[in-house]
């Protein structure tokens, strides 16, 4: 297989989503976001939601408004966080341990709910999403972790197919989707191996294939290179960049100063739960 038919194959699955899922919502346009915002904040906030009038907000893939998160034990993990990530962007999220990176990611995938403020993912108000609609949201987000979270007794192919099986994808569609996801990450040859026989980089690529198999709008990666050596880390970054090139928004939390500095992408720095810096082409201070 060469890469060009693959790309066209991938492109071709982009518009045709799984028919049993809800039809994809249009990209967050002002018409969609504005009513959501006004309903969500009705009578709760005095400040007008003018941040959404910013040009970037029209294509916002991820957006946080005045978000704070206080855990039940009293720990304040995030305070007054405002962040807009336009569709198709590649954003690094940096900061020392405990700065709130993981909390921010948990809010985006609705693993936690914000104490105050609103969180939008692909035009949906995540913080007011009904519980039964959470699975649908998660299918629009590909999530990648530092510890890969692969099932050790399933092969590479089965691990990727698992994400489709458990969301009720018809069997006949699974095969081709898994094939393209594996081809995308370059693991077609290793499809039948168990994760234990793979290198760290291959394991992470399997996890990325699993994240991509739903054809998500956003990839959220929490320290995806944290367990990998520098060379392999670069491979993973290159892969995420390619996925970004194909049109998927990527938000990547990272400690890897070298990578973040070298890439000259937008860098959002968190410290003690607040955004202390947000620079396009920004640089990453050594923590």
């Amino acid at each position, binding site marked *: 297989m060469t890469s060009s038919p693959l790309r066209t194959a991938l492109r071709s699955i982009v518009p045709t989503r799984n028919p049993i899922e809800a039809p994809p919502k249009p990209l967050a346009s002002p018409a969609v976001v504005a009513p959501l915002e006004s309903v969500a904040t009705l009578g709760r906030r005095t400040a007008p939601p003018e941040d959404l009038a910013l040009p970037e907000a029209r294509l916002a893939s991820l957006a946080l408004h005045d978000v704070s998160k206080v855990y039940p034990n009293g720990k304040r993990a995030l305070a007054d966080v405002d962040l807009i990530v336009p569709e198709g962007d590649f954003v690094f999220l940096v900061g020392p341990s405990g700065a709130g990176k993981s909390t921010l990611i948990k809010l985006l995938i609705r693993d936690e709910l914000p104490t105050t403020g609103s969180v939008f993912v692909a035009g949906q108000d995540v913080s007011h999403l009904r519980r039964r609609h959470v699975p*649908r949201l*998660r299918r629009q987000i590909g999530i990648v972790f530092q510890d890969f979270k692969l*099932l050790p007794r399933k092969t590479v192919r089965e691990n990727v197919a*698992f*994400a489709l099986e458990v969301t*009720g994808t*018809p*069997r006949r569609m699974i095969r081709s989707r898994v094939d393209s996801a594996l081809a995308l990450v370059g693991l077609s040859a290793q499809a039948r191996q168990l994760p234990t026989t793979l290198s760290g980089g291959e394991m992470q690529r399997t996890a990325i294939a699993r994240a991509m198999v739903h054809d998500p709008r956003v990839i959220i990666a929490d320290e995806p290179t944290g367990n990998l050596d520098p060379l392999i880390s670069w491979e993973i970054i290159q892969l995420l960049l390619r996925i970004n090139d194909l049109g998927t928004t990527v938000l990547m939390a990272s400690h890897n100063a070298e990578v973040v500095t070298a890439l000259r992408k937008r860098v959002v720095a968190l410290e003690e739960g607040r955004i202390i810096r947000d620079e396009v082409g920004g640089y990453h201070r050594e923590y």
Partner: protein
Amino acid sequence: MISFLAFSFKRALEGFWRNKVMSLAATVTMILMLILISGLVIVLTGLEAGLRFVEEKVEVQAFLNDGVSAEAVNGLVADVEALPEVASVSYTSKEAGLNAFREQLAAQGKEDLTAVTGVNPIPASLNVKVKDPGVYGDVVKTLEAPRGVVDEVLETQRTADAIVNLSGVLRTIGLVIVVMVGLTVLFIVINTIRMAVMARADEIEIMRLVGASDAFIRWPFIIEGLFVGLLGGAITLGLLSLAGDPIHQVTAQITGELPIGFNEQLTQQLLAAVLGLGVVVGGIGAWISVRTYLIR
């Protein structure tokens, strides 16, 4: 829908086989619970049958004087039968009484001395069964009313009361024990299933992260729980049927002449109870265990 069912069943079996130790633990706990409970049911059914038998034995016995005319006896029988609390009245002649006494001696292995006396020492008697062993009403008074007919009325009222009281207490104790053992065992089984689910917390987490709906996460585990229950129930029934004959013999020896049988009905009830309980406990146990991972 079909693909959902196929998926759930496939995952349930996969889960059962891939976590053999936990599945085995859950199944064995289930079997032990079912054996314990069916044992209790058997014992209590025996107890209940025994109590009913003893209660039925409660009767008012009136010994008649020798040489009383048949009319007098018939008149007395009619009077007693007319009482609302009386179920039946039966007349036992001197000869029948003697025969019964001899049989009893023979059964106990004692020497029969009645042949030596030459005369029949056993009086004729009227045996009155009351409908409710606790309610005697005017039975004794009516029996003693005609002069010279009844020699003595056996005072069984106190005995009967004691037996009724005792059987009531025994029934209550039995019920309390069943409930207590049942609850204990239920929690143990649920806990074991919970451990089996916990062993796969990673899998559940991944399912949630990739956007599996609650039904897709929950049902494979519930089906697995049902399967554990069904398997446990089937094995328990197998063991019980193997143990059935020896148990029968032992109980027959203990209860002796008491007509405590393990009839068809009890077998069917036990079959339904064992399978039903296994499946219900397995299903509910899995439901509760998975719930913890779904609620957010």
